[in-house]
């Protein structure tokens, strides 16, 4: 595991509200995550899980409240962000180079998501589950402190789900923070489980 530099990662959302397209998607939401926490966010389709992750990623602005994240952030959402014509390995290498990750880290990420055999396949030939694994590998190779995982279990077979569980637990154990947005209940030990209701408030 990489040596982390002080300060420890942390994530604080204070009474956050977000309005999108004239609709309040999130309201009155507060989250405090410390190093080593896995936060599981559940809720119906459209309750604001993805919005919450995009907000933490800094891709959306809050309408009111405050978001403060300490540490580098990585996001795996429904967008793969890997060039379709490149091989899996080359596409991952592009982001690993951006993040300054070494070859070892990249190879370990491929191994953790069982992608070694697919490394030379162009990204456009991957199946749904394989694409998901590639996007998780991108997060693994980023060496970021805070992982934002949007429906990471979608399309994964049970072996891959176990690999993902293992990766997230290992990340938390090494002092990172994981935010998981999923519609199913947690399959691993989590620090907090948060249920969003249709109004975008924590139920």
């Amino acid at each position, binding site marked *: 595991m990489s040596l982390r530099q002080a300060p420890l990662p942390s994530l604080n959302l204070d009474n956050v509200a977000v309005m999108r397209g004239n609709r309040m998607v999130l309201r009155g939401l507060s989250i405090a995550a410390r190093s080593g926490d896995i936060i599981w966010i559940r809720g119906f389709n459209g309750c604001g899980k993805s919005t919450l992750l995009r907000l933490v990623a800094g891709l959306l602005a809050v309408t009111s409240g405050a978001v403060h994240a300490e540490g580098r952030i990585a*996001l795996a959402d429904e967008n793969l962000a890997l060039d379709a014509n490149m091989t899996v390995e080359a596409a991952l290498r592009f982001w690993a180079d951006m993040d300054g990750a070494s070859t070892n880290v990249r190879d370990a990420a491929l191994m953790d998501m069982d992608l070694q055999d697919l490394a030379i396949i162009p990204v456009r030939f991957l199946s749904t589950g394989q694409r998901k694994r590639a996007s998780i590998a991108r997060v693994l190779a980023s060496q970021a402190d805070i992982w934002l995982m949007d429906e990471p279990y979608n399309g994964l077979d049970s072996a891959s789900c176990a690999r993902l569980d293992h990766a997230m637990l290992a990340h938390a154990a090494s002092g990172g923070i994981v935010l998981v947005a999923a519609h199913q209940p947690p399959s691993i030990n989590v620090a907090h489980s948060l249920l969003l209701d249709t109004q975008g408030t924590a139920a």
Partner: protein
Amino acid sequence: MRAFVALVAREVRLAWTGGGLWLPVVFYLAVATLFPFVTGPDKALLARTGGGILWIAALLATLLPIERLILPDRQSGVLDQLALRGWSDELVATAKIAGQIVAFALPLLLATIVGAALIGLPEAQLGTLLLGLALALPALSGLSVMIAALTAGLNGASALGGLLLVPITIPLLIFGAGALAEDPGNAMQLLAATSLAITALSPFAAGAALRAGRI
């Protein structure tokens, strides 16, 4: 800086593999090939008007790569991932413009030598034409990225792109074609100044459009 170079290299690679590099060149040379059929084999007429036609062809070729410049990266989440890593939208736009200069402007400049030969442009004019295009093509690269960012995801983006491009490029065309005239005056200097202004402003315009398009 290394990451910036990596992003520029990615733009060039995508242009190379996605047809963005050859399409403008083929279009440009097609115009140069077809034009003599319209005017007939009048050498004097071709020499007088050929440079201007190549200018118009270069401006219109700018529109060809627009659809693949921004939209695919927005849809695939690449722009999100860059923003997440602290890249400003202006810097992303600058990298894309630099990529366009390598993958669009340089090939077009080389194609000009072939195009000028096809039209039968006098050698004296070829030098002026190349210099003028070399000055203007960075601005055209900037404009293509800006227009791509503005129209990404809209219906009829190409048609809209044409409407946006034409008014902004009129000064470039006037000074560029003017520099080919027998008495060019300060046309080349004015072309350089106009091009510099457009090139310098386009990353900011494109960056603002990228930001506005993030939902």
